[in-house]
């Protein structure tokens, strides 16, 4: 028996079996450890050993019976040595977990209500799902903006999660283009076959990295000028060197696959269509930084990407590319996948660590930074999958070849997620420096009325630009100078038919829903900002006093929030106001 107090509720056999199975696949014996003497002194260290299995265990409960029941929580609490109040606190944090009995039979159909799906008419999709007798749950961006409106089906009764659109054949808009670098294998090599990956240049980079050695790999990455593609654009070489410099503690490489920024779907397509590349690049990161533990934290709404990555890990391990002496490099490295459960904030790196560790996905204060205090408080290199993909070419071809594309300060190519009112929405790869206008042309131009009203750059955390920005060069430096951002690569177009007030009010609601609630500026600020915009929408105009209030709220969210969510929660709203997209009384 543990010394944790458990209430009277007990799990059903079905719930116990589901949790046991989920733990066994992760090598955990779900037998309660007898505590014959008090071996531990501190709560947190006492719970450390098994606590990080909490998220997989909760997923198992949710999938088995459609909710996280009091008995289920008690069973998980007992097996994993987690206080039930904390397990409940974790379960209640996530959109994919219910902590009340389901009010419907069968699977849950999640319909996205964010911008791309908003203008593509999610209401019609929801109506047709309802007409089929299924239960609809409206939620945030599902990362399928190129095929909006988006649908994700969360299985119940042991049935797997799935995305109906995944049954359609995948088409890359730039298929066959010889200039593709990051996307060159997509649609060419079978993503489920290691042989196909090897036949298309797979694992040459890891072999090369093994010959070069860690120091030379890091030098190449630093010289390449590669910067993070998750949105913050931090220099990857600097991050890796900081982790490599840490000694004496276990180290980690985490791939941040919790892509949740509205409008972003690039990582999903990469993971689904070229999963071995993500695995290989993570292995190189492990080699370079001296980390033996690889983790993929992937958002729960990506079942196909999860399956393909797991398949790739299994195949790579069987072929000796993962595990002890991975690929003969002399370095041990293996990878485990943890699924998120519906929380935008868990894409913030320190919130991701907390979530993976079995705590609430609340960001940590920085400093200390992940390079010294990351996952489990240990040195961690956390990278976006697109960032990692770049490493393969940098290692194989060298930094100079890599820098031959893009600009001096933004070398290489960039994946961009084209959605909204464009002719051919989808994932595009262009060299940094391509203009916004050329990119839109590449994607088939403005659809709908054919007349551009605005483009959302960088997602909900980014900002709007107007039609006068078509000459904007898409680089880190040019977008910064222009007061906007590439962020996670979102380029969402709105034609003149779109009611931008609806779009911006929804963006504000998104932040209200997705704030973790930890710090006051964001927890309350995101609510008050949304309320102010709803007032504006009802009145048809924004008074000068209210306009000033939005700026005052934005200032405290930027200045005093703990993490990037609060820092950016007012960004798109303010850009829409200053462009005159919202806030003016209608002239007609």
């Amino acid at each position, binding site marked *: 028996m543990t010394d*944790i*107090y458990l*209430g009277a509720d007990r799990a059903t056999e079905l719930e116990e079996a589901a949790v046991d199975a989920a733990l066994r696949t992760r090598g955990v014996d779900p037998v309660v450890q007898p505590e014959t003497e008090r071996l531990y002194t*501190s*709560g*947190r260290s006492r719970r450390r050993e098994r606590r990080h299995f909490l998220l997989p265990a909760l997923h198992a409960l949710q999938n088995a019976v459609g909710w996280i029941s*009091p008995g289920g*929580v008690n069973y998980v609490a007992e097996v994993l040595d987690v*206080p*039930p*109040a*904390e*397990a*409940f*606190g974790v379960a*209640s*944090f996530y959109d994919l977990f219910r*902590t009340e009995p389901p009010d419907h039979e069968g699977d849950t159909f999640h319909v996205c209500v964010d911008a791309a799906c908003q203008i593509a008419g999610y209401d019609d999709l929801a109506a047709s799902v309802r007409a089929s007798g299924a239960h609809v749950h409206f939620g945030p961006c599902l990362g399928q903006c190129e095929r909006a409106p988006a649908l994700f089906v969360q299985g119940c009764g042991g049935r797997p999660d799935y995305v109906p659109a995944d049954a359609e054949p995948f088409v890359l808009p730039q298929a066959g283009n010889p200039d593709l670098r990051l996307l060159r294998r997509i649609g060419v090599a079978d993503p489920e076959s290691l042989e196909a990956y090897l036949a298309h240049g797979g694992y040459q980079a890891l072999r090369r990295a093994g010959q070069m050695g860690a120091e030379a790999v890091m030098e190449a990455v630093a010289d390449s000028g590669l910067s993070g593609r998750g949105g913050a654009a931090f220099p990857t070489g600097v991050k890796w060197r900081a982790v490599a410099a840490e000694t004496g503690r276990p180290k980690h490489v985490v791939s941040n696959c919790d892509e949740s920024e509205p409008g972003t779907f690039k990582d999903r397509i990469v993971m689904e269509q070229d999963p071995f590349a993500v695995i290989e690049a993570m292995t190189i990161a492990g080699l370079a930084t001296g980390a033996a533990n690889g983790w993929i934290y992937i958002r729960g709404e990506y079942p196909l990407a999860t399956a393909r990555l797991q398949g790739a890990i299994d195949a790579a391990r069987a072929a000796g590319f993962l595990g002890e002496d991975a690929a003969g490099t002399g370095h041990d490295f293996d990878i485990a996948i943890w699924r998120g459960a519906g*929380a935008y904030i868990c894409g913030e790196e320190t919130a991701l660590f907390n979530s993976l560790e079995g705590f*609430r996905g609340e960001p940590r*204060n920085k400093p200390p930074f992940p390079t010294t205090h990351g996952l489990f408080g240990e040195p961690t290199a956390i990278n976006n999958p697109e960032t990692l993909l770049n490493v393969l070419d940098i290692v194989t071809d060298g930094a100079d070849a890599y820098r031959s594309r893009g600009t001096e300060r933004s070398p290489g190519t960039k994946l961009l997620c084209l959605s909204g009112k464009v002719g051919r929405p989808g994932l595009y790869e262009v060299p940094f420096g391509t203009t916004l206008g050329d990119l839109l042309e590449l994607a088939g131009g403005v659809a709908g009325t054919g007349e551009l009203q605005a483009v959302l750059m960088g997602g909900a955390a980014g900002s709007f630009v107007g039609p006068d920005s078509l000459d904007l060069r898409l680089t880190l430096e040019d977008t910064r100078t222009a007061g906007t951002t590439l962020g996670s690569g979102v380029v969402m177009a709105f034609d003149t038919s779109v009611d931008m007030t609806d779009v911006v009010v929804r963006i504000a609601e998104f932040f*209200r*829903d*997705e*704030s*973790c*609630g*930890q*710090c*006051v*500026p964001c*927890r*309350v*600020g*995101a*609510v*008050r900002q949304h*309320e*102010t915009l*709803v*007032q504006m929408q*009802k009145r048809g105009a924004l008074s000068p006093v209210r306009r000033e*209030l939005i700026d*005052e*709220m934005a*200032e*405290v969210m*930027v*200045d*005093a*929030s*703990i993490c990037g969510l609060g*820092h950016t929660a007012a960004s798109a709203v303010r850009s829409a106001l200053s462009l005159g997209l919202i806030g003016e009384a209608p002239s007609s």
Partner: protein
Amino acid sequence: MTAAGTITETAVTLTIDGRPVEVAEGSTIHAACVEAGIDTPTLCWAENLTPVNVCRVCVVELEGSRALVPSCSRPADDGMVVQTDTARVRHSRRMVLEFLGSGVDLSQAEDLQRWMEAYGADPDRYADEDHPVERVEEPVKVQDELYIRDYSKCVLCYKCVEACGDDAQHTFAIAVAGRGFDARISTEFDVTLPDSACVYCGNCVGVCPTGALQFKSEYDLRQADEWRPEDQSVTRTVCSYCGVGCNLELHVQDERIVKVTSPADHSVTSGHLCIKGRFGWQYVHGE
């Protein structure tokens, strides 16, 4: 926890509002502000708890940092240049206080009220006649004779969770549940305290800054409009139950004990007690 009584060999010197301040290495900026006699508002910080830096009311401007930093948790480094009274700092503090006041009942949060006045916070400016704003409104939980929980007064400072958990009691009866504005302090599935792991040490009540957690004795007097702190005496004594030596502060009104606390700087308790010291005083009155 503070390093009270610890002699640290190394000192660091930082500049706060243009003045050099020397503190022991490992001290926080907030500790340096205290050293310099600068009144810094705090809400989620307490000397007997690990800083969680969530309320953001103690933020200061740190040269070289893009955003403001929480003084309660950021260690003071040699050569740091800190400003505590700039327009940016005052704005953030005012807005944090205003946000809190706009969403919860702060009528019994005396420190907060003082700071709201000092920073000119106007929590009423968000709502108008046609558009009320969302507030935390929950019925008071009266589930036993020892203490009550009124989450419409809760500012989510995490202090009670810390005191129930790693920082003092290691009972883990409560945690933060839900997300965003809907986040609440809760037992598992909101079961009543008697059904939870709660051991009634009352340490959560001891650290609550807003009256969201309140001893039942105080709550009953407040309900009857008979709570008169100005008429109360506080007597310090030693708990008579065991040999540990916990110091108690007996708050007495009309010759009756109305609540029991312990000094946060007491070497034995750090302000925390057990159920006997906290609640087992009825025998004094022959009950």
